[in-house]
């Protein structure tokens, strides 16, 4: 069965996403990284479904997809406003509140 290697791949992708999230300063890239992480989770569910021969994993994938769509739309709205107000997408520039 391929489910276990698929899970390993999912973990690797998740890790890559996490590294991207931490290493990129541009909010857009961070969002991309998050997409990768969500995808990794989706892959893990599919792998689980494959392991148990169930459709539940696939269904979960569908819901993750929905989330990703909804979330990206909100996120991009915020990104647009950010670029209007701050004139940058550098995540480290948004640190007016701290302490």
């Amino acid at each position, binding site marked *: 069965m391929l*489910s276990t290697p698929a*899970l390993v791949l*999912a973990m690797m992708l*998740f890790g890559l*996403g996490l590294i991207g*999230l931490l290493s990129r300063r541009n*909010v857009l890239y*961070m*969002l991309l990284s*998050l997409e990768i*992480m*969500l995808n*990794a*989770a*989706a892959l*893990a*569910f599919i*792998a*689980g*479904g494959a*392991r*148990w021969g*169930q459709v*539940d*994993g696939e*269904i*979960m994938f569908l*819901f*993750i997809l929905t*989330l990703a769509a*909804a*979330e990206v739309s*909100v*996120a991009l*709205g*915020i*990104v647009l*406003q*950010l670029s209007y*107000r*701050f004139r940058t997408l550098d*995540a480290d520039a*948004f*640190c*007016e*509140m*701290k*302490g």
Partner: protein
Amino acid sequence: MILQDFIALSPILDLGAFSLVTMLAIAFKRHHARIAVFAFLSCLLTLATLPWAATATPRGVTMLLMVDRYALLYMGLILSTTMVIIALSYRYLTIQFREEEGVEEYYLLLLLATFGGLVLTTAAHFVSFFLGFELLGLSLCSLIGYLRTRRHPLEAAVKYLLLSITASAILLFGLALLYFESGTMTFHSVGAIVKQTQTVPALWLGGLILVLVGIALKLGLAPFHMWIPDVYQGAPTPITTYIATVSKAAVIALLLRLTTEVGVLEMPPIVHLFSLLAVVSMVTGNVLALLQQNVKRLLAYSSIAHFGYVLVALLAGGPPAAEAVTFYVIVYCAMSLGAFGVVTVYSNEGEDKDRFEDYQGLFWTRPWLAAMLALSLLSLAGIPVTAGFIGKFYAIAAGVDAGLWWLVLALIANSVVSLYYYLRLIVTLFGEVTEPAAVSQQEAVQRPEFVNWTTVCSLGFVASIILLLGVYPEPLIDLIRHSVNTLLMVAVQRP
């Protein structure tokens, strides 16, 4: 799906329907007051369906949702809190949106978030859990950045967005691992598998930890607390209130159901993990709040600590824990509403009034407002006559009952430290009025809308709840006990 299912599900269905109607109403004609009233009534009507729904409980509606008295209790909490927040928001938004447009969607988003919260309280399955979680998070994300022309709300929104998606991703991955190991997605069977085999597979445990990390992130438990102060500070104050109350109450409802059904408290690693989170949260929250000069941030840090206390109660396990946690959360909602409510009422255009200087000597210019804040703070500090005391009593009782001496000790030590900053704020309220404070208080008083009947009623309601629960908690205790019992009867009708 039969009629009984619909009856049981009626609160969720109602609120969903009302949200849609709200959306259509906005599309039809924009009118701030009408929409606000409609949103308020939606919650009220939904609240009214709760007793009706209770007649059909406990009932598993498909395998996704589990409607029982426990869920209904939390629904009641969420709905009534939302109502207060709507009441507080109306005045706040009127002032903030004087020169902007598109204020009405706020209520729609608020209803959607609440909808998500309701789903979370009933969630008994990964899908409903995750979808409720995201409904709440996504709506909140928009709400935090709702004042989109301001820098602070936007900054808060982007922080919340990035970190809440991170939370979702971690949570999802955790769920996926659990599913991969157990081949099922209902809470109960996920736990049952471990119970049957008497072993805890590493992957399963890892998945569970990831899920808990996701939840901890939402609750703002240390070390996943970093976003809390920034978001609390940046978000519009009613939304801050919402995050502090509804969002957390819903997640706690879920956490309690999850821990009970999966039976995680019988696994030593998880108990240790929770203990660690509890202690670190308490210490971090309180130490960070110690010299904080911003009221909203201060309350944010204090909320970190408070959920540390909740964890102590949760760790006790069994009926007392569920009872204590529920009581504490209800009380915490009341006192947060009080504290943030005052900040909301006191804030006017532009920046929120959240610096300490703004509050210097407030008692002498706005005695009732200051008294309300002081009451809430005392409640947060756990001083008798206020609900917070009974809450803390419950937490300690649960901890002592389970013999968690070290955690109880940590709780006490932290309560003492926390007193320091609550007192700092209270002292400020009773201090001499200084020049900048006088100016800002003057401004606030001169505005005609400064206090209107909605704010007076809502704050009055909150105050009376805080006092009533502090003096005569028995009815609520009874209610909680009856409701929580259903949570613990796992062998209910399950399709």
